[in-house]
Every structure is written in C-alpha cells, then in structure tokens.
C-alpha cells in the first residue's frame, strides 16, 4: 500500500526543501567536516591534537544555542499569533537543544580531561552556566509532561521556553566576563582567534552541524505531526 509512505512524505513536506535532500546535504557536509578536521586543519601549536575536538564542540554548542533560541521564537509565536503548530515546533527545538547540549557536555568533558587532567571544573563559570542552562531545559520536559495536553500546557511551556532564552547570552558572555580565564576564548569582540584552514574547517563544521540539527528537527517534527494526525483519525474512527 502506498498510503503510509505518501502520508509521511506529505507531513514531512512542510518546507520547500525535502527531507531526503536535507539528509543527503547533512551527510555530505558532516563527512566533509570530519575530513577537514582530521586531514586538512593544521595541528595547533599550543594545544596539539586535542584542539581538534574544538571544531565539533564549539559548533555543537552554538547549534544547541540556536535550537533554544528557535524554541523561544516558536514560543513567542504561539503566545503572540496563537499559531497551533508553534507549540510542537517549540517542543521539538527544545528536544534538539537538549540532545546537542548533552553532546556539548560530553565533548567538553573529554577535552577538559586531556587539557586540564579533570573531567569537570566547578570553578569554571562557563561550564557551570552551561550546565545550569542544560538542566533548565531538562526541567522543561518535567513541566510539559506533568500537564494534560491542551492550551494550558502549550502556554506554560511557551513561557518557560521564553524564560530560558535569557540564559543563552549569560552563558555565552560568562567566559568573557570571568576573571579566571580557564576556558579558551574562541570568539572575541575583534572576531575569531584563528584564521586560515582552522577558520575554514570551523565554518564547514558549523554549517554541517546546523544543517544536521535542522534535518533532525524536520524528521522529528514530521513524526510528531503524523503521530498527532493518527491519534485524531483514531478518535474519529472510534
């Protein structure tokens, strides 16, 4: 039967770019980024080989921030324009952000183990503030799933997601405001602290991770929309 595939395809087709095209682009970009990270980018004179974690670690962190910002934007749309799909989009953005946030913490800890000899440093404001941001968004799910589906849950989740976005600039600025510079500063007010192939590799990694996150977002959103439609259909047929 061709109906299921057609249905999933139709639900996933909410944008001009189709999911297979996005998935193929993500695959090509991530593969290119990995090739650049390990075979093109030069080894850093100060940090040595361990600096290569930075390409994905920073890109994933910025992708997580983008996901949380996207969640806040959709939450704002829900509260302002009462867009019924915005609640689901906001939820999927937070989910993506938490997944990428987990990766930031894992890759950051691995880098810390190589460079500092410890998995975690409570004295680093950047680390602690990112952990606070991460836990704040983990609590979003506790709030959301403690309420019955409906306008109340959508509104409370939207307000929570909007509050969370305040933590993003705080987390981003923490390293620049901190007195004790433990965590490396990659971007300053004068631009990035690197150039040449390092900058090219970083840009490719950043684009790859953003496209990957957008692809995963679209897949998850399509699945959740289809799930919702099936539930409605079941109720009609019951």
């Amino acid at each position, binding site marked *: *039967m061709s*109906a*299921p*595939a057609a*249905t*999933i395809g139709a639900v996933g087709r909410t944008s001009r770019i189709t999911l297979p095209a996005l998935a193929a682009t993500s695959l090509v970009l991530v593969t290119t980024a*990995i090739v650049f*990270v390990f075979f093109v980018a030069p080894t850093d004179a100060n940090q*040595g*080989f*361990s600096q*290569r*974690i930075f390409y*994905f*670690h920073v890109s*994933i962190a910025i992708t997580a921030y983008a996901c949380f910002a996207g969640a806040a934007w959709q939450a704002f749309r829900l509260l302002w324009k009462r867009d019924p799909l915005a609640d689901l989009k906001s939820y999927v953005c937070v989910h993506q952000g938490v*997944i990428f946030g*987990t*990766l930031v913490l*894992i*890759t950051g800890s*691995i*880098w810390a*183990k*190589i460079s500092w000899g410890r998995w975690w440093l409570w004295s680093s404001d950047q680390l602690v503030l990112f952990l606070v941001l991460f836990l704040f968004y983990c609590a979003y799910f506790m709030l959301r799933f403690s309420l019955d589906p409906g306008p109340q849950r959508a509104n409370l989740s939207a307000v929570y997601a909007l509050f969370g976005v305040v933590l993003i600039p705080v987390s981003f600025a923490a390293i620049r405001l901190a007195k004790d510079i433990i965590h490396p500063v990659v971007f300053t007010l004068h631009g990035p602290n690197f150039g040449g192939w390092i900058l090219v590799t970083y840009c490719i990694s950043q684009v790859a991770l953003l496209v*990957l996150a957008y692809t*995963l977002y679209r*897949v*998850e959103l399509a*699945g959740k929309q*289809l*799930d919702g439609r*099936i539930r409605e*259909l*079941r109720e009609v*047929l019951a």
Partner: protein
Amino acid sequence: MTTAEKYVTAAYCVVFAVVLVYVLIMALKLQRLEREVDELADRVPAEDDAEETPRETARVG
C-alpha cells in the same frame, strides 16, 4: 596512538553514536507510525462496506 588522539577519537565517536541512536529511534518510530497508518487504512474500507449494506427502515415519531 597518543592519549590525546584516543580522547579526540572517542569524542567524535560519541557524537556519531548519539546521532546514530537518535536516527534509529526516529526510524523505529516512523515504522510504528506507518504500521498504524496501515491499520487505519485497512479499517476504512471495512466501514465503507458496512455503510453500503441495506439498513432497516424505522419510523420516527
């Protein structure tokens, strides 16, 4: 392989594994949804057939 190389490889493997697990979970979920759509699609003709069967007329009022 130096210690730094091992850790860097581990970091990239973790990223790959997390994305792979996520994609697998989504694929399984989409398979389940496809089965549910199949199940619902099978039910629709059956109900159409039921509507086509002649109904007993009943006087109202």
